[in-house]
């Protein structure tokens, strides 16, 4: 039974990773940049929800919506101020800027809200008892899995059916050609950041509901793990982020249960290195040979 319960914990953790990884993978696919600040947007989202429910007593749904709105605005703002001027710059410069933004958010949060760890009030509580109480699933876990599925389906439909989604795919394939076809590349990239950041807000609330601690550095490690998930699944691929996230959640939970809690991160990152060694394009990514 503990095996099954580990699997469930893993899948629910993995669902959260998958939602975060979707943000990474979409931004990477279209802007070809590693958005280091993504993890910290998660933290901002969680803080928004924390203040809305804890301090102002808003109902959970409203505070989640508030977090989503704030994070979306933040994502567009970051993209416009920090990344847009660097469209033509070498990738090293973009990466360093992204790290700068990540640090800015972390330290800004620390100055504004303090460095101490806060206790997050979960948006849903309680758990479902199965098999005569031998298997417990918390409602947060179920909510995380449901959210992940909904997000996946919506995103898949969005990118394959809508005009904006098609524009996104076109931009990620070839920006120049997309521009010639009359697609506004800049607004498409902004839109991608907006969607990614909105997802980050959802993931932040879910993560802090499942593991109710919150501090300015809450987002950074899950952000890196989710990036690992995105690379694992094949960066740039939406189903890949889903698959990578779930697998990574399971691997992490099993590492915690059967190896050592202290070493779980080491195991996760070792997975990343092995994946990059054996299959650099990830599980579902496609290998694109470089043309000269």
């Amino acid at each position, binding site marked *: 039974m503990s095996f099954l319960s580990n699997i469930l914990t893993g899948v629910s953790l993995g669902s959260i990773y998958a939602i975060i990884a979707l943000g990474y993978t979409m931004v990477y696919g279209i802007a070809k940049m590693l958005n280091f600040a993504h993890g910290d947007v998660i933290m901002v989202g969680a803080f928004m929800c924390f203040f809305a429910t804890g301090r102002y007593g808003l109902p959970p749904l409203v505070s989640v919506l508030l977090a989503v709105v704030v994070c979306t605005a933040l994502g567009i703002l970051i993209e416009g101020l920090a990344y847009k*001027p660097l469209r033509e710059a070498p990738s090293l410069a973009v990466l360093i800027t992204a790290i700068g933004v990540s640090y800015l958010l972390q330290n*800004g949060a620390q100055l504004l809200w303090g460095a101490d760890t806060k206790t997050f009030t979960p948006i849903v509580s309680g758990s479902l008892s199965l098999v005569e109480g031998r298997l417990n699933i918390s409602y947060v876990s179920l909510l995380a899995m449901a959210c992940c599925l909904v997000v996946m389906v919506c995103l898949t439909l969005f990118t394959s059916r809508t005009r904006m989604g098609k524009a996104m795919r076109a931009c990620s394939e070839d920006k120049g050609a997309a521009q010639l076809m009359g697609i506004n590349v800049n607004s498409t990239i902004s839109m991608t950041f907006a969607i990614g950041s909105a997802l980050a807000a959802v993931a932040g609330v879910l993560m802090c509901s499942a593991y109710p601690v919150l501090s300015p550095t809450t987002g950074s490690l899950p952000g890196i793990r989710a990036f690992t998930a995105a690379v694992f699944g094949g960066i740039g691929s939406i189903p890949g982020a889903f698959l990578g996230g779930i697998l990574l959640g399971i691997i992490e939970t099993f590492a915690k249960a059967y190896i050592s809690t202290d070493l779980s991160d080491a195991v996760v990152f070792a997975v990343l*290195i092995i994946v990059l060694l054996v299959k650099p394009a990830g599980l579902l990514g496609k290998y694109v040979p470089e043309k000269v």
Partner: protein
Amino acid sequence: MKRTLSKTSINGFINYGIVIAAFLILQLLMAQGMISNTLKSLLVPVCCYIVMAISLNLTVGILGELSLGHAGFMSLGAFSGIVAAMAMQEFSPVPRLIAAILVGSIAGALGGVLVGVPVLRLQGDYLAIVTLAFGEIIRNIIVVLYVGLDQKGIHITTNSAGPALEEGGIMVIKGPMGAVGVPKLASFTAGFVLILITLFVVQNLVNSRAGRAIMALRDNRIAAESVGIHVTKYKLMAFVISAALAGAAGALFGLNYSSTVSSKFGFNTSILILVFVVLGGLGSIRGSIISAALLYILPEMLRGFEFITKARMLIYAVILIAVMLTINNPALKSLLEERDLSLGGLLGKLKNGGRAKKGGAGQ
């Protein structure tokens, strides 16, 4: 050709000169008793950070690959250096320190090979994320590591009870508590010598055939490959040398405190060093030395002002973004090129960062 060569070697000599002059002035001031104890305690860490900055500059500025786990190599060097120093109890301090630094740099180099071989073959931002992951793995592993020394040699275990030691054995690394009871062997002179060695290694590498190959890879990998430069070999060379120097700096750093925990060498430390390198100027060794020294000492000196202490990293973050946006500003870049201006000092060196894309034009 001759003119450029002599120019680079003059540049190199100026760097040696700056370091030697700073050392002599500080020694003189110390002899006069004009340096506070706070500043004195900062001298060895400053030397370590200068070496870290120069070595990271080799990876980021000269090779053009981003490493976010530089502190991981420092950590490897620190802990292996501490073990080496503890294992050589019967020797006098100087050979112990030298051996520790050597062991530290070897450990760093091994780590560099381990990370570099799989990852340097990949393109894009993977190196950044893998070095980051590597730094975290090292930190994780040292937290669960228990290392003891006795007559029979070194005992390593992950059992929290620690290894079974014979009588007279000592524990060196105690898991989450890190290394304890470390002899304080490090001295400012040792740090100074280490900086000189680092300068010697990096400057001679940069001005050699290998160094030119490395810079060619940074400026245009495909063009470099097409003239027969072995990509992996030269990338690995730069990366491993950088890691070895970081290991050496780590060993010196570790032997400066009586106890060291692995969380000292976390992601934040890696970023701090990256900030030093970027603000000093990508590819500029002198810039790294000056910015590491200034940026490390300034906040410590300003500890009295509460706001600066609190907002230090925030200010760094803003400066980091501002510098990146400024040097990559197309308007500014074309203005500089049009007028053939090279802003003296810091900004002139910073232009090197933008040069990567222009295929090394103007050199």
